[in-house]
């Protein structure tokens, strides 16, 4: 946030004056299941990207390339919506 954390130091009214700084808040840490994509099955329909509530599907050149694990909360919507069952939800305790 900057220098001080006292009531005199922070913007009034709870206003946030730094655009997009929510990205620094890592919400991925409370995930219990993580999504994993099988790229052989994935057709880049991008439905997972459309439905992800946390903007955590990574897309490059209109191709689904992976997940933003810093912000993915493991809700499983991407896995549920994928028409090709390309996304699997694995317990965080498993490796891979």
């Amino acid at each position, binding site marked *: 946030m900057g220098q001080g*954390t*006292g*009531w005199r130091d*922070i*913007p*009034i*009214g*709870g*206003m*946030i*004056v730094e*655009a*997009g700084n929510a990205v620094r808040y890592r919400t991925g840490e409370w995930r219990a299941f993580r999504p994993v994509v099988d790229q052989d099955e994935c057709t880049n329909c991008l439905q997972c990207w459309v439905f992800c509530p946390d903007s955590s599907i990574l897309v490059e050149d209109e191709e689904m390339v992976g997940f933003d694990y810093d912000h993915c909360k493991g809700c499983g919507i991407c896995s549920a919506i994928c028409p090709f069952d390309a996304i699997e939800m694995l317990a965080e305790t498993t490796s891979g």
Partner: protein
Amino acid sequence: MSEFRALDGCAAVAEAMRQINPDVVAAYPITPQTAIVMTFANFVADGLVDTEFIAVDSEHSAMSACVGASAAGARVMTATAANGLALMWEIVYIAASTRLPIVMPVVNRALSAPINIHCDHSDSMGARDAGWVQLYSENAQEAYENTIQAVRIAEHPDLLLPVMVCQDGFITGHSVERVGVYEDQKVRDFVGQYKSAKPLLDLDNPVTYGPLDLYDYYFEHKRQQVEAMSQAKDVILEIGREFGETFGRTYDIFEPYKLEDAEVGIVVLSSTAGTAKVVVDRLREEGLKVGLLKPRVFRPFPGPELVGALKHLSAIAVMDRSVSFGSMSDAGPLFLELAAAFQIYGPRMRLADYVFGLGGRDIAPAQIESVYRDLLGIAETGQVKQVVTYLGVR
């Protein structure tokens, strides 16, 4: 004074709004303020203002739209009363804590139940903890002038808090008076242009309003609100002085009436103060040293200032037009706060509360006279026999 017109309190406030020409008014009707927004809507329809008028589906929506518009950077006004104010309650708090300079005339009317459309102060008193500046107007002239000043008070960079301008429902709101109306340009020059420091519509400097604020920072934001409220008195005085320099009548925190050499006094808000002044004059003719103090500002509560002006008295009666149920002795809020002020800032004082006029129950000069006679008795005996009296109830 540019001209004198026959206006009731609602029309006078609508006239102030026309001259202020706010960017946005989002409003819903409710007796006895409907005439304010209805008259203003006619101004909009007639092209007399540039205001974007949003006819919403409820008062909750009205204040919500006002909050959005104000955060966007607009100068915003609305008006309400009674259950309308109650319906917008959560957003009323949000307007203050988001630090939005919204100006809202409140035409004081009793809260239900049972349904009552007439005057008492339960509505604005019910919102006294919400963080708004609250001004009370004795008559239509004051309602008009307070509304104009409220815009400057709210928008002052040391304040940035919303302001409620109160007047008595029907008694002031629907009673036609001779109101001095200033020239449009003079009012426009006085209120000036609103420059929001961080408007949502400034796309080059994006900001977020109303985010989540947990135990790590909420307390600090509330401390900021306290700081703003502590500045409010100076801002109100500054604007009141400037108003005097511009228009000829200076406004203060309260108005004393034949108080300086008085032995006993009544403290009362709004139109009843006008009635009480007549009683003071009559009793003075009898040689009785009685006086009156009419607070204009209830929030922030000017405790030290009131004590300073009242401490020479032998006994004080507060007349409250609302009850704080379950409060100490089921008293009214003006009494409770004045009692606290005397405890902290003043000498031991004989104080009595007279709750009156609930639901528009009329208060007659003879009843106010009886309060003064009670006070003279208290001054003589040194005893307050009854802390709270409900004046005029059968």
